[in-house]
């Protein structure tokens, strides 16, 4: 039977119309309700990426982690066990479903060549190669081993890295490791603004 939003147990009302014409039908009427959409979903505990309250969220995805299913988010709700938000979420946290599943997400690496007026697709390997070469060339061209007073400084002032405040601690540590090892001094993140 076509699953409409809610259907009456046939015995309760429509079928009963005939009898109930005379008001004699005493069987308790029950409304049948919508299936709980998260009933069989996989529940993953995560943290909302937005503000620094760090509300615990439960991300419900289809599939029971079977191999042949790519998890698709069906609902995001607050984590009732999390002592700070206790299941509550703000309007941004409550709409994380649309942040995970969003048709505006960038799906492939793109490059804008000098002077060009639009994006071009580029393969990951080629993009990363070009970036690495540019970084090396820029670093080698402008690396400062000693400053005016002869102190060793070993810094590269022509490259800058910005970002990381909505990314994990581990990513930030890798940033500091990699960028400091290349001698970068221009390293900033949203903590500054």
């Amino acid at each position: 039977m076509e699953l409409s939003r809610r259907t009456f147990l046939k015995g309760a009302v429509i079928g009963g119309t005939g009898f109930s014409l005379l008001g004699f039908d005493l069987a308790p009427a029950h409304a049948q309700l919508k299936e709980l959409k998260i009933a069989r979903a996989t529940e993953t505990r995560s943290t909302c990426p937005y503000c620094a309250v760090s509300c615990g969220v439960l991300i419900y995805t289809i599939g029971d982690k079977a191999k042949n299913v790519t998890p698709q988010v069906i609902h995001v709700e607050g984590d009732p066990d999390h002592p700070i938000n206790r299941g509550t979420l703000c309007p941004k946290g409550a709409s994380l479903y649309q942040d995970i599943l969003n048709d505006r997400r960038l799906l492939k690496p793109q490059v804008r060549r000098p002077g060009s007026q639009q994006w071009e697709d580029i393969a990951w390997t080629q993009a990363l190669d070009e970036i690495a070469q540019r970084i090396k060339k820029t670093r080698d061209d402008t690396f400062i081993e000693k400053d005016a007073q002869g102190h060793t400084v070993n810094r590269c002032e022509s490259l800058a890295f910005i970002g990381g405040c909505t990314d994990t601690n581990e990513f930030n540590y890798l940033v500091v490791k990699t960028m400091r090892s290349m001698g970068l001094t221009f390293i900033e993140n949203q903590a500054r603004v």
Partner: protein
Amino acid sequence: MTNGWIDIKNTDLALVMGGNPAENHPCGFKWVIEAKRNRNAKLIVVDPRFTRTAATSDLFCQIRAGTDIAFLGGMINYAIANNRIAHDYLLNYTNAAFIVKEGFKLPEDGLYSGFDHATQTYDRSTWTYEDGSDSGGVVASHAAPAAAAPGAPKPLPPLPAKVAYDLTLQHPRCVFQLLKQQYSRYTPEMVERVTGISKDQFLKTAELFTSIRKDGDMKKVATIIYAVGWTQHSFGTQTIRTAAMLQLLLGNVGRAGGGVNALRGHSNIQGATDLAGVFDILPGYLKVPTPADGDLAAYLKRTTPTSSKPNPWDSYNYWSNTPKFTVSLLKSMYGDAATKENQWAFDYLPKVDRNYSWTQIWDNMYRGSVKGLLAFGMNGVAIGPDSQKNIEALKKADFLVVGEIYPDETSEFWRSPGITLDEMKTIQTTVYRLPCAGFAEKDGTMTNSARWLQWKYAAVPPPGDARLDQDILAQIFLKVRGLYQTRGGKFPDPILNLTWAYSDPQHPPLAEVAKELNGKALADLTDPKTQVTIKKGQQVPGFAWLKDDGTTACGNWLYAGSWTEAGNQMARRDTSDPSGLGVYQNWAWSWPANRRVMYNRASCDPSGKPWDASRKQVWWNETAQSWVGNDVPDFKLDSNPKDHMGPFIMNPEGVGRIFGPLAAFADGPFPEHYEPIESPVANLFHPNQPNNPVVKKMKTPADKYAGPNDGYNVICTTYRLTEHYHYWTKNNPMNVQLVPEPFIELPVELAQELGIKGNDKIKVSSIRSYYIAKAFVTKRIKPMMIDGKKTYQIGIPIHQGYRGIQEDAGRDARTILNRLTPTVVDPNAYTPEFKGFLVKVEKV
């Protein structure tokens, strides 16, 4: 935050100022409501606008943006005048009794002692304590001032080991008297003239806030909650210091329901700061070496403070362990390549001798010296300030790498509104836009504003060809390293020797990085006192185990203890809270050492008994001869209260700093009211010194600053909405439905004056650029009388740009708010002055 989110429920009174938690941290603001509901706590809100936080407040004051120091200075003045101070707390836990050295001058004329007009900097050698070693430490009033050496800024003298002090707080040069004298100028009348808050409204607020200390009652606690409303000024750091001094004066720091609580903005801004994603620190807030340091020993000598305290007192001075933390960091970064001989690879670190902060990146790029920019999840163009300058700068750069999940303004600066097709041809910047993974596609930890590190799990794979951010970074680095291995190049050593021993180098598992952050033993170590040994390669249980002889490696000493041999402490989910104070010891892990409320020793009187028995955090257990309690004591466990060790173990003095000596602050030991760079009125305290003297304006043609007579006389402040998140949720259809279009909040009176009705399209322009949006004519911002002159304030949310759902559909003007903001920064934190600049309003 000194305390935590849930701890706010223990407060008796909350002052929310320079922040709008109901809109920007709604789920955290529940705890202020919990305090109101369960403890009848009162909520005071002071803000340029009547925000949704003010809607639930018991007392609201509308203040002129940028005059918070005047207001707080007035509160300090009121507290001292009415003796609403925590006397014992002040005496024993702050440097109120310390005597300041001769030669220090209060800024009656707007300048402290030692200001050099040419370099716009202070010679801060006079901002120190009187040396009390020769005269038994009590009173020494005649020590000769150190001869001011001419010429080059000589390194600052160290703080005296034994400080002169006067427990009666009567000495004219003791910190308390100087404090009293400094804020005696901040009378209620002056507060009214500067901030626009009427005298009786200010007195009512001051009375309510300091009422917790009415006739010395130490039971009650008040908390101060703030956010970027305080930070984003050219005197932001000093504003927050005033609040800290006020809380020290009232004895609220370290207590459940007290403290100075900064509501950090982004989900992992605290973690990114702890891990030094900024130019001037290394992970764990270690200082970055300068060229003058020469070698590791000199660097450690400069950055390792020595204790400076009255003789009979004791100071843990925990930063004395800096060498252990630094060497452990270098061992973690460079592994075996860091040997005792090459000073643990000290020279691999770049040396910093000037300001490389946010506005400097764009300034240097504008001048052509920064060639390449990697932007991972940070929208530089939309952030600004003076976004047009950032766009001009990017046009000059060689290449830009943007790692994002949505199309953003920075990656498309080359076709931002106003750039014609043929102008695009002239822009030679190569832009790589790499699709990254969203929050639900990554595991790892994020540190919240209450310093809790919480592990999260990946729920869905990245869509399309998007890759995890750490994988992208690893792959770029490994390619660079590969190039250096094959072709060599300038000083390749740090790149080649960087430790990268992950099970899958191209896809570094974050669990392994987290373990690296916690740190491990590189040799068998035994703790002499407890005879506990940990084997080589085992995780260190805490930062007390870190050594400076290269036998331990630790990515961030603050995070030592987060992933121990007992497993991932950050993934713990035990919801028990036996004390009921919202400590939740076994939920996730908070730094340092899982301590939830910082400085909690100060929650007890000098004898070690809690001020308020109903909110017991930690206390001195005489029998066990140790500090015990519901929270990890932020103290030396076995330090008997009789030794009078100060609760602020990170300060050399061991006590709270009401007076910020020597290099603590660039613009003065005490906060002084200075007008924002673009201010409609003169500085009423010292007209000839209107602005913060050490703040430097930028010099490129794109940097313009307006005065009141340039035709800009409306004060503008920028803010965030609860429905949107920075420049991110303009891609989210649900949030766009809640707030579909940009708008500008302006008072009804100003709207009538300009003939503007609700929903009219209006144009707000500063001397730098313009912004177009709909008018939101509201009663929630009232006109103010500043020094007798009627002044208007307007507020503009920051959330729109030129790429987003509504923007792409052409339903708004696609202008960026931060084109308006001035390029001038706070001298200590380098945060741009996004709030309190001048604009003019006109109909489109």
